């Protein structure tokens, strides 16, 4: 073999080695030599490549292990203590908890009763506890109404987790609508006004647009105060 041929041959070999490495790394289950061969160019010496690869990982943090004729990468056995607290799959919040969190985020400070009012169902015991435990909500004083119920608001951890700089970053109703998340509201409103003109008496809470106006005025007032009182 000429020197040039030899060099080309070596390059092919090391390219094949890279391929075997990537294939084994990304595989979702241990692979047989045939599995690997089926992904490599024809005629590659798979057994030889796997052996060479295993050699490369000797005494490293990762080993190429063979189990029942199949190959897979694993972290070295003697380092298992580093990962020992093992797999704690992130849990998903229940539907009720996500909704409750959303209401607290948008309406804070808000009492348990108000949350139930908005959701239209009672709040089971565990729901608020889960949010408190996650560190996303916290008590925010008491409402000056009979019974002086606790009010809840969101925490700084909440902002950090959801990547928000401030509560003000939460998209408002108009933003949600622009995002298409409130698509059927128009239909619902149309239906509602049709009902209404049909002579229905109406009862319920709060016009969101009115809320927006109040917000705007409040902010304007807050700014005025800031400007007058530079401290």
């Amino acid at each position: 073999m000429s020197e040039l041929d030899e060099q080309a041959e070596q390059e092919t070999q090391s390219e094949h080695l890279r391929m075997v490495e990537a294939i084994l790394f990304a595989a979702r289950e241990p692979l047989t030599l045939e599995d690997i061969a089926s992904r490599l160019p024809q005629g590659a010496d798979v057994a030889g490549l796997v052996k060479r690869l295993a050699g490369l990982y000797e005494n490293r943090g990762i080993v190429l292990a063979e189990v029942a004729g199949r190959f897979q990468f694993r972290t070295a056995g003697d380092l298992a203590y580093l990962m020992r607290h093992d797999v704690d799959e992130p849990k998903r919040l229940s539907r009720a908890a996500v909704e409750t969190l959303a209401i607290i985020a948008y309406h804070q400070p808000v009492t348990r009763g108000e949350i139930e009012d908005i959701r239209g169902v009672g709040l089971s015991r565990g729901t608020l506890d889960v949010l408190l435990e996650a560190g996303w909500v916290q008590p925010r004083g008491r409402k000056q109404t009979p019974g002086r119920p606790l009010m809840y608001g969101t925490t700084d951890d909440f902002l950090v987790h959801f990547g928000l700089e401030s509560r003000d970053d939460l998209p408002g109703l108009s933003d949600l609508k622009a995002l298409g998340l409130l698509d059927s509201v128009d239909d619902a409103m149309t239906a509602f006004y049709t009902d209404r003109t049909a002579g229905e008496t109406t009862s319920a809470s709060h016009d969101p647009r009115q809320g927006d106006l109040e917000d705007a005025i409040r902010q304007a007032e807050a700014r005025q105060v800031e400007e007058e009182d530079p401290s």
Partner: protein
Amino acid sequence: MNKEQSKGPDSLSVARPSDEALVLDLDGFEGPLDLLLMLARSQKVDLTKISILALVEQYLEFIAKARHLRLELAADYLVMAAWLAYLKSRLLLPKEADEEEPDAEELALRLQIRLQRLDAMREAGAMLMNCDRLGRDVLTRGMPEGLVLQKHAIYDTALFDLLRAYADIRLRGSVTALRIAKRPVFSLDEAIRRLNDMMGSTWEWTQLRDFLPEDMDDPGLRRSALASMFVASLELARTGKVAIRQMETYGPLYLRRREEE
């Protein structure tokens, strides 16, 4: 032209409709600017060197063809056509002394700059999509052992879940009937009367909030008063009794009496 040089149109990987599709398939375009950009590229020169006049011609011709084929044209394509026809006449006519009208060259340049910017973003989008994307071009380990990170939250709820949930609640709520609670109101008539009386001696710029009644403890009533006084100030400004000014967005509003003519 100035130092701006953009890459040639050929470096673009966004698929473009062929000439035929161009006539028949307006749906393929994302609005008039997109259509203009495609036409500009057909000039096969750097976007900084395109002829705006030729571009206008191309666009108007395209629209004429589409109408000839009785294709429904969305309103914004027609608005753009009208605007371009105006631009063309301004570019061809000698400049008039009329300073009210914007400079034709400025309008043309503005259009050209907008095309460059859209083109740049289209190219950027293509470059982004050509990145080695996780899950397509590069993979992470197929069977990770897993490893607990103390700092990670236990719950993996995403912002989108939260927004979705809130939107759903709102949707549910939207079918229930609404009743707007009766609120304390400071009436507009009252506000106009009050402002009119107080304006008589106000020669200095004075903040609108200083005209509010002082004895208002109810924040709801106070808000209503602020709103009514604001509307009252507009009314008095309209009838020439007061002048209003605001130095910046969200800044305080100032009023003062206006000299009688």
